[in-house]
Structures are given as structure tokens and as C-alpha cells.
């Protein structure tokens, strides 16, 4: 039975009066489980990126919120997400990332599935040498597919299958960034990295979507990107973040720069935007590159951040890409002590969720408000069910 926390009402007050989410939302395993249900299951959340399975037949097992899932690019090129379990005895099908040459064979009794998830073989299911049996209808026993959608190369999933279509739910952001609705080319192995941080995933979101901390935590940005050059991005119930008006392109010693995305409006000459699309994906767009960070909760106090960088052209300079990856890695690593420090701070029993700067913390409060609203709805539904 979910906990009904009256302090959630405090979170939902106007920013001048609101407190942040209570400590338990960051450290309590049972509340963490409730949040997984309330914040991840019914809506769209990020799982991975399509570039994780670049070639037909590529399969990547992913444990997400404790669920064994399988990201799979079918032989015809379509990326799908399945439960990584055989329809026979629930055995895990794929243990390690690998290429599926033909079919996925369950290592237990060798039931086989196509890369589209169709059950194609049920050996000896009717006895030795007999591969059909009454009640075993292969057409209804394919891999259980998780509803998915790809946007900005992120593989979004709706686990319950009940959400409105992704494009409908996220129409506002898709329109906002419509100029980036064009091919994004993953930079490859040099353009991805993973950070493991000892904090609740929400702290990574909260830190990402505000610019207040930039001059203090990222002094290197200060020389050209001052606090007053930033603006808030706030779309209640959907996303929040920050934008800058003074984005400067990376240029290496040879004077090389990345090519711009085609046909961007003048705004993007110097603008860049960084948005947390709730719950767990952090996106950034610039005239010459974009990135996606998929946060994968590992329990209440640990999070994996999978970071991927994208470019406008498939043949961008490897040296420049490496430099850009190193730059972003430095920035994101600078944030680690902050999110881990806030996590440790959540064990102080008298911490009351904290107060927000009305001028600077709007995007963070907006995220808290979304969490609180979802939790209230979830608690209400659970109570009604009882």
C-alpha cells in the first residue's frame, strides 16, 4: 500500500512557499518501488538509444527497474523491446550483448524466436520428435513486446502500454525542437560513456535542469557562459530545463569545427537548450551536435547515466569528436560531487526537502511538482483500489 504523504502537498505549492520532495523519496526502498510504478510504468520513459543496436540482429539485454528486457534490432532493421524471457519457463534468453545470426534459441529447452519476436520453433513440445502440441499456439506465444517509440534516437518505452502515443504526449517538445527533426548520427564508440553515481536518479534530473549552479560547479563555463546568459525552460507536467544564449562551437587547434544541422534558424547560431524530459532522459541540442543521457535507476541511491553524442554528419572528425566527448565528460563529472553530496544530505533526518530560489529554481521545482502530482495520483488510485 503506497504511503500517502501530506508533505507532497507542500511540494506542490507555489515555488515561493514550496519545499522539495521529502528525504524518503531519495532513500527509502519501498518508496523507490512506488515511484517506479508511479513515474515510469504508465507513461513514456527512456530505456536506451537505438545506436546501442546499430546492426540488424544486434541484441542487448537490459535490466530496467529490475525487469529483464531485450533491445533488439530485427533483421529488417526495426528496433523493438521485448521481455527477455522465454514464453515456456520464463528463462532469460539473452545474457550478453550479441548478434543474433538467425533465431534466438532459449538455452533451456531450445524454443526459438525470430528477431521480430515470433515463436518459430517448439522442439519436442508434443513429445520426442513432435514439435507441435494442442494448446501451443505459436502465433500467440511470441516474445512479449514492450511498447516503444524512437525519438532523438532514444528508445522510449511505455511499460503499461496504456499511455497516449508518444508524439501526442510530447507534441510540445517535438514542436519546440522540430528543427532538429532530422538524422542524428551517433559518433560511435568515441562518443558514448557511462557514469555510475551514488545518488537517486531524480537528483541527476534536478541538477541538470537548472543553471543556478553553473558558475559555482562549472567555473570553466563562466568565461563565456554567464548566469545571465541562461533562460529557464518550463513546460508543466512534461519537461523543464535551461537554455543558453551564448553557445560557442568547439574549434580544435587545426581550426576544425563540426558541421551544423541543416536549415536551422538564426536563433540557433548562439543558442543551445538542455531539457529533462520527465522522468529520466536529459537531452541537449546545439547547432552542431546533440546529446542524450538516459538515467537508469539502480535502486534508491545509485544511478547509471548512459551518455551519447550525435552529429549532423556521419563522417565527423574523430579527433574533434573525442575532444567534444572529453569536454562533456569533464562537465558531467563536475556534477558528480554535487548529486552525491545531495544524496548523502538526504540522510539528515531534519532536512525538510529544502526551499527553492523563486528566481533560479523554477525548472527544478517543476520536476518536483510533476513527481508529487504523479505520486498523489498513484496513491489515490491505490487507495481507491483498496
Amino acid at each position, binding site marked *: 500500500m503506497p504511503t500517502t504523504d501530506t508533505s507532497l502537498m507542500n511540494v506542490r505549492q507555489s515555488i515561493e512557499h514550496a519545499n522539495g520532495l521529502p528525504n524518503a523519496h531519495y532513500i527509502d526502498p519501498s518508496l523507490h518501488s512506488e515511484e517506479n510504478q508511479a513515474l515510469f510504468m504508465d507513461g513514456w520513459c527512456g530505456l536506451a538509444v537505438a545506436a546501442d543496436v546499430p546492426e540488424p540482429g544486434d541484441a542487448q539485454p537490459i535490466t530496467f527497474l529490475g525487469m529483464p528486457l531485450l533491445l533488439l534490432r530485427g533483421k529488417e532493421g526495426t528496433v523493438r523491446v521485448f521481455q527477455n524471457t522465454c514464453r515456456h519457463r520464463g528463462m532469460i534468453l539473452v545474457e550478453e550483448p550479441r548478434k543474433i545470426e538467425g*533465431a534466438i*534459441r532459449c538455452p533451456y529447452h531450445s524454443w526459438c524466436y525470430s528477431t521480430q519476436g515470433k515463436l518459430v520453433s517448439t*522442439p519436442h513440445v508434443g513429445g520426442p*520428435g513432435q514439435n507441435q502440441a494442442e494448446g501451443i499456439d505459436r502465433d500467440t506465444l511470441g516474445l512479449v513486446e514492450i511498447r516503444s517509440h524512437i525519438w532523438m534516437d532514444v528508445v522510449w518505452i511505455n511499460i503499461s502500454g496504456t499511455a497516449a502515443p508518444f508524439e501526442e504526449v510530447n507534441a510540445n517538445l517535438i514542436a519546440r525542437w522540430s528543427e532538429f527533426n532530422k538524422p542524428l548520427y551517433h559518433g560511435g564508440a568515441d562518443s558514448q560513456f557511462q557514469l555510475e553515481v551514488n545518488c537517486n536518479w531524480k537528483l541527476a534530473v534536478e541538477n541538470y535542469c537548472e543553471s543556478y549552479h553553473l558558475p559555482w560547479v562549472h567555473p570553466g563555463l563562466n568565461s563565456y557562459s554567464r548566469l545571465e546568459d541562461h533562460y529557464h525552460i518550463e513546460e508543466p507536467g512534461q519537461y523543464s530545463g535551461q537554455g543558453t544564449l551564448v553557445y560557442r562551437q568547439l574549434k580544435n587547434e587545426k581550426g576544425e569545427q563540426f558541421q551544423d544541422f541543416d536549415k536551422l534558424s538564426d536563433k540557433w547560431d548562439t543558442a543551445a537548450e538542455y531539457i529533462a524530459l520527465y522522468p529520466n532522459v536529459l537531452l541537449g541540442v546545439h547547432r552542431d551536435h546533440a546529446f542524450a543521457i538516459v538515467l537508469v535507476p539502480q535502486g534508491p541511491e545509485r544511478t547509471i547515466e548512459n551518455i551519447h553524442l550525435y552529429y549532423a554528419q556521419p563522417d565527423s572528425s574523430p579527433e574533434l569528436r573525442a575532444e567534444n566527448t572529453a569536454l562533456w565528460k569533464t562537465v558531467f563529472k563536475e556534477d558528480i560531487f554535487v548529486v552525491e553530496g545531495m544524496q548523502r544530505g538526504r540522510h539528515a533526518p531534519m532536512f525538510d526537502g529544502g526551499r527553492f530560489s523563486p528566481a533560479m529554481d523554477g525548472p527544478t521545482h517543476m520536476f518536483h511538482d510533476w513527481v508529487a502530482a504523479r505520486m498523489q495520483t498513484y496513491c489515490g488510485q491505490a487507495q481507491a483500489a483498496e
Partner: protein
Amino acid sequence: MSDLNTQLLEAHQRGDGAELSSLYVDAAHAALEARAKCFYLTHAYVFALEAGLSAAEEIRKQLVALGAEPKI
């Protein structure tokens, strides 16, 4: 057959799906009973499917003809 058994065990050890499929076809051909033939052909089919071998379709047809595999 004991030679075939050894080869099968070695192929299993190596995880060599193509070789396994081929050896199980041989085992099916050597089998005297229909049920044993279907048993081995089923294994040949499964490993051919897993390895993405074109031989899988021919083996499937044989299993269908023997009543061991549903018609598509």
C-alpha cells in the same frame, strides 16, 4: 554412431551451430525409426535456425512431411 556421438559432443563443446545442424542431419539419416529421425531432424532444425542457415527451410519441410512440424 559412436563416432558421430563424439563429433556431436565436440561440436556442442565448441558451440558450432552449423556443424551441429549438419551432424544431426547425419544422425537423422542413420536413424531407423521415424520418431528417432524426427528427434534428430528437430535438433538439426533448431541449430540451423539459430545459426541462420539456409538449410533450415529444407529441414523444416522434411519435418512437416513427417508430421513433426506444423505447416505454415
